[in-house]
């Protein structure tokens, strides 16, 4: 019988201005960045930054809910591997992230449409193409 280590996942809803401090706290506590993603739900962006601890298997997600035009500070200065996740958010959803360490300037994925996953006005052209 193997030992099962599965602590309950945590989901912390925080404000945008708390993001950097919380990320710093988690990093100090020995967490690594597991993933970061955006979702476009109810005309708002939901950003999830998940941190995992390799020893305790704790999984903590920071959830930031913002309007589509709110600027988000980049956490790449604190957590360097976030660079790809943030570029992805920026490119696929159009989340306004400022000060990314390595900004691919919307060339991370070589796609034709801008922000295909984001607000529908921008994505409308892609959908038309797909229907045709």
């Amino acid at each position, binding site marked *: 019988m193997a030992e099962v280590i599965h602590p309950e996942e945590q989901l912390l809803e925080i404000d945008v201005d708390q993001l950097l401090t919380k990320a710093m706290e988690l990093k100090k506590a020995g967490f690594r960045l597991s993933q970061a993603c955006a979702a476009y739900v109810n005309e708002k962006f939901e950003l999830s930054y998940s941190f995992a601890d*390799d020893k305790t298997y704790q999984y903590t997600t920071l959830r930031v809910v913002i309007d589509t035009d709110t600027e988000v500070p980049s956490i790449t200065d604190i957590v360097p*591997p976030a660079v790809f996740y943030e570029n992805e958010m920026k490119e696929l959803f159009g989340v306004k992230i400022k000060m990314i360490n390595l900004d691919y300037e919307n060339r991370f994925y070589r796609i034709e449409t801008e922000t295909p996953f984001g607000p529908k006005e921008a994505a409308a052209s892609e959908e038309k193409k797909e229907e045709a």
Partner: protein
Amino acid sequence: MGKRSVIPFGPQHPVLPEPIHIDLVIEDEKIVEAIPSVGFIHRGLESLVDRRDYNQMTYVVERTCGICSFQHGMGYCEAMEHVFGAEIPNRAKYLRTIWAELGRMHSHLLWLGLLADGFGYENLFYQCWRVREKVLDLQEMTSGGRLIFSVNKVGGVIKDIDKEKLDIILSTITEVEAELKVIKDTFLLDYSVQSRLQGVGIVTKEQAHDLGACGPFARASGIKTDMRKLGYGAYPDLDFEPIVSATGDSYARCYCRIMEIFQSIDLLRQAIAKIPDENELFTPVKGNPEGEYFMRVEQPRGEAVYYVKASGKPYLDRFRVRTPTFANLPGLCEMLKDTQLSDVGLLVLTIDPCISCTER
């Protein structure tokens, strides 16, 4: 101090099986910086959620990757089962575990072959893939597909493996184990292989942790982590310990993966011995999903994260898969620094890149 210049590496390159492009800033023959860029095969699978219902998505998710296809489907289904709050039958859990471990075996054997090809050992490459073929035959026999199984379903599995087939699995993995021992000795003890792998591309434990590495890549650097410990599938009933190596070089990564094949064989034996005799293969789930969940699964390449968010409609609001290669890319860039240009092809291989699933 030489003059700096930039060499583009990939997406088409003889040793690279995957379309990743890296801009290598070099000084003489030494790499100073590596800037990766992916995105040649972005397929937009995640955006399909608003046009496919959650059952159809199972088949879309499976096709994220051709190599760890089963584990993608499994991770997605487990996430959906958490959202539904459904408990799947025990036999289904064991069947999923058996298929997942078969998948891990074939994926690592494929990687060993590619590695051998990467350092120019053509003969060993063929040998690895010959052994892998047996595992593929097992997969085809049990699920109907050589790589893409399509046996997962939200709530369980749709196919059973009967007693005779389980016996065939047992006898075949014994053969595979014997053949693997020869390969293992060659990889771990042969002088020419060692000289190519040892001390190359060292990633320390601290670096691996800071760069968010996962899977065999992190374990080779001494981080003892294995998502199977989270207790999904039948893993709570099986006895295993994560395989860890301390040196963090290419040799350690090779060692971890070879040992994981033996571990998979052991896990398969345990699972087949313990599989309960039940007729139920799935619990029906009713209604539309509501809620969200982050599911973590240990794939052959490392930890994969599946995020599902649903709001009471048959179509999910958001589905996201973070594949292990995505998490290992920063580690790769760090690893490439201060290495020789001629090692780059091999080093990129040692994280076991799977770019198609990275870009989805």
